[in-house]
Every structure is written in C-alpha cells, then in structure tokens.
C-alpha cells in the first residue's frame, strides 16, 4: 500500500486520504496512518507546489554551479557540502562524478546577486578549488512536469 500511496501523492500531493482510500480499496483511517508513518520515517519529506515562477511574474535567477573541492581527511566531501548547503540561497547540492565534485543550484533575485554570492561566499570557502557557473535561461521540464504545455485529449469521443 505504501508504494501505491507514494505513487499517487508524487503525482498529486493534494489527493485526499478519503480519495486515496477509494482508489486502493482501504479505509480512510488506514491511509491516514500509513501517510503518518511515511512522514515520521522521513520517506515523505514534505509537500510542495510546482510553480512556474516566470508566469507568476516573479523575477528570479537560478544558476547551476559546479564546484571542485579538495576533500578533507575523515569527512570526505561532506564537510564542504555542509558549509555550502547551509546557505539559504542554495536550493540543492549534489555530489557528482566527473570533472567537478559538487553541483550546486543557487537561487537569487538578479544575476548580479547570484554572481556576487558565488564570488564572495562559495569560491572563498576553505576546500573549494574552483567554480563554474551556468545561469539557467529557460525551464523546459522540472521534476517530470513539462512547462508551457497544456494537455489536450484528442481521442475520438466514442470508439
């Protein structure tokens, strides 16, 4: 049942326990309890809304920043990663394979603000060897959702 609940909520977090109960042939109480458990175990980390901020009219700049670091003994990359993810401007941090070690997503109001953050805060961190910043120009698809596309049902109405 947990797998099914997660599948439903991952598509639409607003699906009510009542509706999920019908879909899975369980009682509402069973569903509520299962969701509680998933939350307590930290499987469900939260519920967010996917927003096309550009459409919402909010000025916003996102940048992908690749960071090369020298790992420190004992803590590996974790220590530097922690120093980076503590900043509120940082939306995501990933440890990645390849030329760079960390991939950081930074959000700011203006390009200047983001550039400043990188130069002042990120690049100067101990252990950071170099950075490469790419500004995000357009979002086509985010977390499985395609932006700007409306679903049309073009099936024959009766077949």
């Amino acid at each position: 049942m947990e797998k099914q609940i997660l599948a439903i909520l991952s598509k639409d977090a607003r699906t009510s326990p009542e509706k999920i109960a019908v879909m899975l042939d369980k009682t509402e109480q069973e569903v509520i309890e299962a969701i509680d458990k998933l939350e307590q175990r930290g499987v469900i980390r939260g519920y967010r809304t996917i927003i096309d901020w550009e459409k919402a009219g909010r000025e916003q700049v996102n940048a992908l920043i690749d960071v090369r670091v020298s790992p420190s003994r004992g803590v590996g990359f974790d220590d530097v990663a922690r120093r980076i993810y503590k900043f509120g401007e940082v939306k995501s941090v990933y440890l990645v394979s390849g030329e760079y070690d960390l991939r950081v997503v930074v959000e700011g109001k203006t390009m200047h603000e983001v550039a400043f953050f990188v130069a002042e805060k990120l690049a100067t961190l101990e252990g950071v060897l170099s950075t490469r910043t790419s500004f995000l120009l357009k979002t086509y698809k985010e977390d499985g959702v395609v932006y700007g596309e409306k679903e049309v049902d073009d099936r024959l109405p009766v077949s």
Partner: protein
Amino acid sequence: MSTPPSGIRKFFDIVASVKDVISLGVGEPDYDTPWRVSEACIYSLERGETHYTSNYGTIELREAVAEYLQQREGLIYNPKNQILITVGVSEGLDLALRAILNPGDEVIVPEPSYVSYKPCISFAGGVPVPVPSYMDAEFAVDPNAIAEAVSDKTKAILLSYPTNPTGAVASRETLQQIVNIACKHDLYLISDEIYDRLTYEGKHTCVPTLDGAYERTILLNGFSKAYAMTGWRVGYACGHPEIIEAMMKVHQYTMMCASTMAQVAAREAIKHCWDESEEMIEDYSRRRRIIVKGLNEAGLKCLNPKGAFYVFPSISDTGLSSEEFSERLLFEEKVAAVPGNAFGDSGEGHIRCCYATSIDKLEEAVERIARFVRKI
C-alpha cells in the same frame, strides 16, 4: 450489406454533434505512447527502414513476441512459423476466422462482447452463435451454456477475457471447462487477449496454457492497450504452424505486411516498456475504484470489474432502454457512455463507461450521472 453499422459508430455520430462532452465512450488509453517507442520509430525512419517486411512481420518483432510469451506465460511459439504480425487484433481476428471457417460454420461467442466479433464471423461466411452472460455471474460465461450451444456445425469458440465492454475475467477453472468442451467436439478456440495486462485482481489466464488448449488455440494479442499504442495498429497471432500459414496467406494477399515503422515501435514497447505499462495499469486500477464507487452511489448498480478499463453498470432500474439512457445522458448532462446493446442483446439494460480518463473528469462525469439519475 445486411450487416448493420456498429452501434458504437452510430452513437459516435450523435456524440460528435454535442459540444463540451465528457466522454466515457472512448475505447483506448488516455496515456500517450511511451516516448522511447515513438523515438525508436522516428529513428528507424531516419535510417530509411521504410520497405516491406516479411509477410509474417519482421523476425526481430516475432522473436521479441516469442520471448515475451515465454517469459510471461511459459508458452513456446516458434517465431519462424507460429507467430504472425497483424494490423492490430482486428485484422488477426479477421484472418483467423477466414482461415478456419467454411460457409455455414458456427462460432460460439459469449456476450456481451466486442462489437466486431459477430460481423467478422459473418464476413468470413460463418454464423455467430451468441451465448449471453449476466451481471449476477459477473459476466463470466457459463460453460454449460456453451456446451448447450455446440451443434454439429460448430467450428470454434471465440473468447475474450478480460472482456470489452464488461471488464469481466473468467476463472482458470471456467476456461478449462470451456477448453474441455472444445477438445470433446474438436473445436478451435480463438482467444482475443488484448486486455490481458489490464488484469487487476488475480493473474490473467492465457488460454493456450490450459490443458489441451495449445494445439487448437489461436491466440490474438497486440500492443494497443498495454502500451497505449492504439493508433499504431499492430498486433500478433500465435498458433499451430498450419493455421498461422493459412492466416498468413490471406494476410499476404490482402495486407502484405503490417506497417514497417509500427513494427519497429512495437518491438521497442514489448522489449523495454514493461515498467511504463505496469504504472499505467496501477493507475487504471485506482480510477476503476473511483468510478465504481461513484456509479453505485449514483444509484446505478455497478460491479467492480477485474480487468480492461470499462465498467458496465446496470441502468435497468431507471426504466429506460440503454439507447434512451445514453442519448438523454448525452443531451441533458453532456456525458457520453455507450449503450450496452451495442455489444449484443444481453448488453441491453447497461451502459459502457470507460475510465481511461483523468480522475477529475471521472468525478465530474459521475456527478452529472448522479444528477441525471435523480431527475429521471
């Protein structure tokens, strides 16, 4: 000329005249074909794979079908001479009937069932012998009724579980009894299993896996429902080499081969899209429960079907005929559902609702149906 146009077609023309309809009348998935399938097809076009294939279909696709059936059902079919790629199950059915029927041969068809069966039997010179099934028995056909319908002219029994329009599945025991009847009277079995993957409770029973069935069964299946590929028109037929060869001959002279690009796409689907398919199926199952609950609450008695993506609620308490109900529902509440009599006389008193539609729309449709039922 005497064959009437499909009841679905007739209703389609009416629905097309009304605007802003929520349609529960569709007979196909609302998902798009998985992109990797379409992409494989596009790539094949770029490489210039645009020529005829073998009459049997590409050996690559036949091998993929053979491998799939072995993995899923433990069935062994030789891809060289026991599998024929067809233009959907529709063509496979036509070929099977034309291959085995002589004029006047009878084919037993459980009803309610898909609209094409009876006309196709007639086109092939045969005589359809419908055997009704009822809601009380969850629309699974009674083997005794089949046994009674056998005459000295009977040539074949045409099965289709899970069933369009009822969503019924037949138990392994029931199907074995039917196979036994076929063995006793030396009949062919034609099994249209296009909805096999859409089985929600219990495991699907593939007819040729039953005792005594393999040699006499023509298994028909395709890609439309499991992989959301209705418009590609690809299916396959499996059976005894002699029957497949006879079917291939008709196919050779009438169709040549299934569309080459669609065969490429189908191979991609059957080899790589099991996960996508599973996800769609789980999703259908959830929507099924939503519509079943909604229709029962609306006052239409509705079973919880175990397969396909249709429910077939009873509307007989309303006092209306299937056609009256469907037409009034369409004009008064703008919801399209196919009148049950389109699927045979035993479908009268029912409507077919397809739930391969978004949950929001399903809920809205159910609300409208409830309002309509209260009003009658």
